[in-house]
């Protein structure tokens, strides 16, 4: 360096090391249930605020655990016609739909060679307990293709014991590629519209290429479809954490 006034240069201390604390970074990745995020529309935000108050009220009394599509859950509901007045169903969550109080999730299981799917409402007062038996995410957010997959991929033991899990561990992603029954399927899962990564397509090459004819590559660049939820999510997370601590 060029020294000023001919004097030796002033001592420059070395730059401070930047410590990236991995633990705090992990805590920032919090889970917000997807039914809290309001859809894009012209409804008054007051309506979503009031709905959220009701949802938080329900969550204070009844614990709704964090779960994603691909988890194996056991749900106990109240049933006036059962002998014990309650029913327990174990299944893999294939879809989470709905926003606000009407949020639903669909559990699928194969019982005695018969595929059974039950759609439960998260905030229904009939639900008495939701237990997460196995935590694992899958490659897709919608596992409806399990209907056309071999039944072994949808069978889960009804008396399964909950798999133990360490807290603050990342939820493992099961990169399982599912084998399908022969065509015809309920939906043409090979088409790019469904964007499924969890199927091992054993179709011939020309069929896979023909399916790409229905691809819409302009969709990812469509700016009118963008819905940035990061700021809304932050506000809702703050609201949730404040209310649940009370």
């Amino acid at each position, binding site marked *: 360096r060029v020294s000023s006034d001919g004097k030796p240069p002033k001592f420059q201390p070395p730059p401070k090391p930047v410590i990236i604390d991995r633990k705090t970074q992990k805590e920032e990745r919090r889970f917000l249930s997807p039914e809290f995020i309001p859809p894009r529309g*012209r409804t008054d935000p007051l309506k979503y605020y*009031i709905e959220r108050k009701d949802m938080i009220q329900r969550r204070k*009394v*009844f614990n709704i655990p964090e779960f994603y599509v691909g988890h194996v859950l056991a749900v106990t509901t*109240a049933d006036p016609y059962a002998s014990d007045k309650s029913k327990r169903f174990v299944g893999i969550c294939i879809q989470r739909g709905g926003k606000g109080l*009407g949020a639903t999730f669909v559990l699928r299981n194969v019982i005695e060679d018969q595929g059974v799917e039950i759609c439960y*409402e998260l905030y*229904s*007062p009939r639900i008495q307990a939701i237990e997460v038996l196995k935590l694992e995410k899958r490659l897709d957010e919608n596992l409806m293709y399990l209907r056309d997959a071999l039944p072994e991929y949808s069978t889960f033991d009804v008396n399964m014991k909950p798999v133990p899990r360490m807290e603050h561990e990342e939820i493992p992603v099961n990169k399982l590629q599912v084998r399908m029954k022969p065509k015809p399927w309920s939906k043409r899962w090979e088409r790019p519209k469904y964007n499924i990564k969890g199927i091992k397509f054993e179709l011939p090459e020309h069929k896979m290429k023909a399916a790409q004819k229905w691809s819409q590559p302009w969709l990812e660049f469509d700016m009118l479809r963008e819905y940035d939820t990061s700021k809304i999510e932050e506000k809702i997370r703050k609201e949730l954490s404040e209310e649940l601590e009370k």
Partner: protein
Amino acid sequence: MMPIWTKSGEKHAVTLLKVQDCHVLRYVSKEESGGKTAKLLVGGKNVSPFSKPESAHEIFKEAGVPRKQKVTTFNVTDDAIIKPGTPLYAAHFRPGQFVDVTAKTIGKGFQGVMKRWGFKGQPASHGQTKTHRRPGAISTNKAAKVYLGKKMPGKMGNIYRTSFGLKVWRINTKHDIIYVNGSVPGHTNCLVKVRDSKLPTYKDCNKNPPFPTFFADGDEELPEDLFDEEIFQFTDPSVTFA
């Protein structure tokens, strides 16, 4: 619209209606209006005063109230007359009451006869020449004319329609919101007129309503939420069948 659950676990769909700046504007006596009962003009939802001429502001200036988007009339008995200028709140209604809701339906524009009146149209194939959604015959030979009021294509929607006998499940006094059973005509955020039900089955349903209306500066202190007896409140534990 939102789901609501009863204590027995049944789900009902509910529409939220917000009472936004409602004020009584004018009292019209029976002789003046020429009807059977006295009338009260009520206005709702404040709107900018600059888009209408001064002559249109007379009613609002007399009542001392900013300009309202919509002014409706309510037929009222002599003991239920309210002074012009009083604000009306959602607490005027109570859970368990039955209510009629009037609003302008969603406008669908010029529509054909199949959508507008539910005609069956004609088959898609088997030799039909250019005739799949047409009305077909419009009258008989003997009549030799088309009757007045014949169902034909035209502008559909954007007319006032009423849903009768809707139950009020819940009232939020803090935000002035009425939870009304079922669906209501009109699009989201449209203006709606809510009235006590005129159906004969619900004539004796109102037990001790706030009469003539709920006054905010009175002595009554209402909780933030008023629920119907059958509603499942989220503060209770899950429903069990004994």
